């Protein structure tokens, strides 16, 4: 990150290739379609580039990156909601996205966390996908480690209930 601030030409490629997969997964687990997730990823890197001077050398990088990514996701969600509110539904248009982006193709983790409330989903994704520590998640979400821990606990309890529900449904089907 410090090399990036000093305009080292190799630094952007190293950062982008190292962090983009986890960021993309973070966006995907927040209910974004593959196309939306890639758009959010591009927006995130643009914003990172604009505010790269706000990174303080020596500070952890991941909370800084994820705080920006989180904000980009919120802005993206609001933007798409505004667009949806202004769009007129035209029944004659075919729903092509449903064909190309099947929801059931999501991996188990994404499918499970998609059922969690937004705050719990965000915390669990950062912990388990981004590999952030409790303290880092607290920094990225402008929260405290205690609050993050509580959200994660509630999230895991809910996931456990969901798993029980899946198991019972599977048993019922047999």
């Amino acid at each position, binding site marked *: 990150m410090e090399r990036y601030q000093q305009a080292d030409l190799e630094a952007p490629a190293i950062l982008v290739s190292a962090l983009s997969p986890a960021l993309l997964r973070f966006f995907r687990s927040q209910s974004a379609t593959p196309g939306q997730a890639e758009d959010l990823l591009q927006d995130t890197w643009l914003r990172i580039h604009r505010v790269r001077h706000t990174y303080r050398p020596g500070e952890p990088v991941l909370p800084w990156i994820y705080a920006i990514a989180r904000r980009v996701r919120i802005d993206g969600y609001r933007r798409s909601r505004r667009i949806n509110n202004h769009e007129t539904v035209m029944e004659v248009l075919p729903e092509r996205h449903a064909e190309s982006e099947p929801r059931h193709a999501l991996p188990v*983790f994404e499918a499970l966390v998609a059922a969690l409330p937004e705050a719990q989903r965000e915390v669990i994704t950062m912990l388990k996908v981004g590999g952030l520590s409790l303290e880092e998640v607290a920094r990225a979400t*402008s929260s405290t480690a205690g609050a993050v821990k509580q959200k994660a606990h509630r999230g895991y309890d809910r996931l456990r209930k969901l*798993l029980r529900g899946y198991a019972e449904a599977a048993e019922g089907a047999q």
Partner: protein
Amino acid sequence: MNCQDINQAIVEASPLPPEAEEHLRTCARCRELAEILNVPVPADLPSPTVLREIERGLVAELRPVRPIAPKRYIWASFLAIFVVIAFLGVYHIGAFAIAVKTPLQMSAILAALAIGAGLLAYSLMNQMVPGSRHRFPPGRLPIIIVISLMIAIAVLFPFQHERHFWAKAWACIRIGALMGPIAAVPLWLVLRRGAILSPIMTGAATGLLASLAGTTALEIHCPNLDASHILVSHLGVAVLGAVAGLVVGWAVENRN
């Protein structure tokens, strides 16, 4: 270990400690949860075209940048703005309250205002840098400060019935409200150097800090000791400032 302990272990450690294994052997739900959360799932990789496009975009506009100033400088800048505006305000309108208030009342209310301003400056300093450690939740801090000041005023000053309450209140609100925008301009000049991720939250905190300078000047200026007057027309100025900052932040956030 029980299911709650497994939650704790999953939150705090990866891989799980050996004590968790016994529980995982007997509890199917915990075993499934641990597997889902710990087994690496094949990731969706961004398309190489997208990655190349991002890299090209970043390299094209790459030039060296100077990292943002150390925290203590930013914090000191915010506090200096607060103190200078409050001082200039008092210099302009006069310090008539010093002769009327007891040393305890004066020192306690000024200390409460200074602590509030210090905490807001600390919060703003962290809001300028994404991923900063927040010791106090930044969204709730302005509310906590206003409530604490209300309690301090109610404890320190007596509630008296006074005539022409609203006329006197309006006179103070008018003076105090003028100082908020004056303080907000230099505060914004410092803030724009950072990356404001939540304009609403930052707007409310900035508005409150700016108008607390006005409240401080009024506390040194106004000889009225009625708690209702101080709550409505001195602290009211701070609340108005916070609301104005929040509205400005909301407008900025919705423009983006």
